[in-house]
């Protein structure tokens, strides 16, 4: 991305040619990374970027072709959330992140595949069909931002935006061998992100390298008056030179290396941590005693919020509406029965139950209390260390024909990623090695709120020392 930006300025490449080349690659895409490709819009953006590049003020993203997860609203371009219920929905507004990217001259190639409403870990639960992992097309790219992950890994875009509610950026980043950042809750506006679980959702960048992810993150972060949960503060640009790891205290939670972690994944992650240590980092063993409750808490809080967030898809104002309904109740029931897939229905039902009279205290209130304890664990941990390192996922990409059909086992794939969402912390996944099949393994770094500078700095320094991120499929 940064190299392309330099080439633009030296007139060795033009945004229009670059965009045409990406569009051509997308046409031949066999991984099914995109739901909608906006060729016309992309070329229009590219031409505008050529004008923009004549100004010395043009930013690093001017003319850079990027892809957007299809649960982020794009004005005039269909935004489906991979759901039948929104299959024809065209927003009249841009999400704040999309507006920011456009203002900085980025070229928006199209909308990437996902699990319906970002609920899933495989990018198979989609009206557009499954996305395949460019590392091995018989395998899942992970999810729910698997379309963005595959598009980046296959070189179909220079970078992409995903959304992460319980690991939906980091897991596909890990499975596809790319970099993915789940920013601090409140640092990137959620305006225009179709809500799954409002208190957990966060938009973030996915890119081939940490530097590219940092450029995208810098472009989209910042306070937005349209999102009341966005935090007003000084957002300084990331130092793309990396940081000196000397003396950096790296916390390693023993809870992240327990039962269920694939030994090959553990080996790769431990070797990644050893690199950080070798670069001057100091390893500190830490405790996150409540992290083990993360998945349980998550599937109450996230489904509760989802059951409410998805109530608006009722067939009244936009989206799918069932014909021939007998009455209003029947119209709702039929529309939502036709419009939502089984996983979405399962989560709506779970969440409705968790919030219902007589169960609220036992489920939602209790989950909220445990969530506070998890956040408190991290606060204590960060008094002993500067960043936390561990695996992103317990396994590497699995085969689509070996799909886990037990939802509970699928939910456990998020065991290491969920705590950062519950605590609102920033977390980065970077490639740190491969398993015996040559599938990439991701290492997750976590930092205190708004300390993306530490994560990205450490990640840049790590990638300057390693080549995992360059070893393509």
């Amino acid at each position, binding site marked *: 991305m940064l190299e392309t930006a330099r080439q633009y300025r030296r007139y060795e490449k033009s945004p229009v040619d670059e965009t045409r080349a990406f569009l051509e690659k997308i046409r031949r895409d066999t991984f099914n990374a995109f739901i909608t490709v906006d060729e016309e819009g992309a070329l229009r953006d590219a031409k505008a970027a050529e004008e923009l590049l004549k100004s010395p003020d043009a930013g690093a993203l001017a003319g850079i072709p990027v892809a957007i997860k299809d*649960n*982020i*609203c794009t004005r005039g371009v269909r*935004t489906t*959330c991979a759901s039948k219920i*929104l299959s024809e*929905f065209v*927003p*009249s*507004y841009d*999400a704040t992140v999309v507006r920011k990217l456009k203002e900085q001259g980025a070229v928006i190639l199209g909308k990437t595949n996902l699990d319906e409403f970002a609920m899933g870990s495989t990018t198979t639960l989609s009206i557009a069909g499954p996305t395949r992992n460019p590392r091995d097309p018989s395998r899942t790219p992970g999810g729910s931002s698997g379309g963005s992950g595959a598009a980046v890994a296959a070189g179909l875009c220079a970078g992409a935006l995903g959304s992460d509610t319980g690991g939906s950026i980091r897991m596909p980043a890990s499975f596809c061998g790319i970099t993915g950042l789940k920013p601090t809750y409140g640092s990137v506006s*959620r*305006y*225009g*992100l*179709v*809500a799954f*679980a*409002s*208190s957990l959702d966060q938009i973030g960048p996915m890119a081939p390298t940490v530097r590219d992810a940092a450029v995208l993150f810098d472009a989209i972060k910042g306070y937005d*008056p*349209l*999102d*009341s*949960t966005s935090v007003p503060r000084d957002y300084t640009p990331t130092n793309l030179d990396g940081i000196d790891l000397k003396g950096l205290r790296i916390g390693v939670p023993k809870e992240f290396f327990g039962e269920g972690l694939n030994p090959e994944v553990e080996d790769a992650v431990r070797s990644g941590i050893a690199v950080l240590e070798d670069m001057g980092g100091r390893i500190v063993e830490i405790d996150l005693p409540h992290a083990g409750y993360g998945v349980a808490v998550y599937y109450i809080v996230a489904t*509760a*919020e989802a*059951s*409410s967030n*998805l*109530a*608006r*898809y*009722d067939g*009244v*104002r*936009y989206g799918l509406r069932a014909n021939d309904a007998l009455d*209003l109740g029947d119209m*709702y029931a039929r529309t939502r029965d036709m419009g939502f897939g089984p996983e979405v229905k399962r989560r709506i039902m779970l969440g*409705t139950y968790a*919030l*219902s*009279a007589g169960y*609220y205290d036992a489920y*939602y209130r209790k989950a909220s209390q445990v969530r506070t304890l998890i956040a408190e664990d991290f606060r204590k941990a960060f008094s002993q260390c500067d960043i936390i390192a561990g695996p992103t996922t317990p396994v590497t990409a699995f085969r689509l024909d070996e799909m886990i059909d037990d939802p509970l086992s699928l939910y456990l794939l998020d065991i290491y990623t969920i705590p950062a969402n519950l605590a609102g912390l920033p977390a980065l996944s970077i490639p740190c090695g491969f398993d015996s099949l040559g599938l990439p393994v991701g290492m997750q770094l976590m930092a205190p709120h708004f300390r993306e500078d530490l994560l990205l700095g450490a990640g840049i320094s790590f990638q300057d020392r390693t080549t995992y991120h360059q070893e393509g499929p």
Partner: protein
Amino acid sequence: MKAYDAVIGLEVHAQLLTSTKIFCGCSTKAGLPPNTSTCPVCTGMPGVLPVLNRKVVDFGIMLGLATGSRIAPRCIFARKNYFYPDLPKGYQITQYEHPLCEGGSILIETAQGVKRIGITRIHMEEDAGKTIHDEKAPLSYVDYNRSGVPLLEIVSEPDITSTDEAVAYLRELRQILMYLGICDGNMEEGSFRCDANVSVKPAGSARYGTRTELKNMNSFRNVQRALQYEIERHIEIIESGGEVVQETLLWDPSRGVTVSMRSKEESHDYRYFPEPDLVPVEIDSAWIDSVRSALPELPFARRERFIGQYGLPAYDAGVLTQTKAVADYYEECVRLLDRPKEISNWIMTEVMRALNEQGIPITELIVSPEMLTGLIALIDKGSISGSMAKEVFAEMVDTGESAGGIIEKKGIGQINDEEELRSLAREIIDAHPDEAHKYRSGKTGLLGFFVGMLMKATRGEANPKLASRIMKELLEE
């Protein structure tokens, strides 16, 4: 029949007079063409987020202070989940566990004296749109202009024990809202809406009976009728050995009965939970103080002051303080002319009548306090009689002219009393025998002298034609 006590609690929804909606920038103006004051936020489009209009919090704090409520230092919005076409998000953003205000009260006048009615809570929420059913086709339309218009919900304690008290409470609350300038109080158009919880218990018993909830009472009269009907219905059921069923009922004003809407079993489970798209509202003492400093004097206090300061009877004070505008008008009049009781009488009778006839608020009355006090001053001086003044006032209301102008034009301010003028004229003739003699000897030019004397005696207010005729008649007798 045994004696029973009624127990009534009221829930009022007051639509706020902010210029924009509670969570978006759309106008709150009523009467616009359907769906023209809407945006992605208030129509619940995917991905959009609410942003709180802080003016709504200001208004809530105002009412909280006016009712002596505790203002929460930190209050939280919640989602109330249910499906209905006029509810675009499938949930209403309201407040549940942590409302803006708690523990207030207002004072009402009852036959037994002043009574305090507790206010359990006041919270902020958004209004829904309006569903319009097509009578001819199996079709319904939804207008989202009202969706997101801010409301305050005011929940009373079950301190109300009669229909009269219920109406007194509503009138007082409505008056406070209007005094504060935060709600127009229009019940017919729904900017001041009331639901009631009603139960009865044997007189003196501490145990509450089963309650029913009443909806659809859109005037004070309907509140009174519906509550009366419902109390009697409860007593009848209990007297005949039955049990009151907990349910929600609609008042049917044309038939004068309450009709079951849904039973307790059918009641919604709203699945309240904290609204994750909004942060808690932190209210510090500086915020409360800034609202307090802008708070107007409230009706009850003003009523008391009118009694003390102007020596008005309680009845007058009550009428004059019914709206802030009338009270302001009254006080401006008193400032111009120190006749508090006379002014009160005028406002309570002639002014109020004119307002009723024209169907306008006092702020639109063409007769200003200057004009009204000008008229009253003329009565004081004896220039016109009280009954004449009423005619003059009616003319002022119609034409907007001053009292003086009308009197001059119509001549009604002049002394037209023949007897009075005749006796004055006799005195003048008697006091000037020489001149009278000369006149009668043919020097009729002296008529001018005599008329002049008569005019002087009436300070110029005698009707000159009448004065001249009477003088001539008497001199030529």
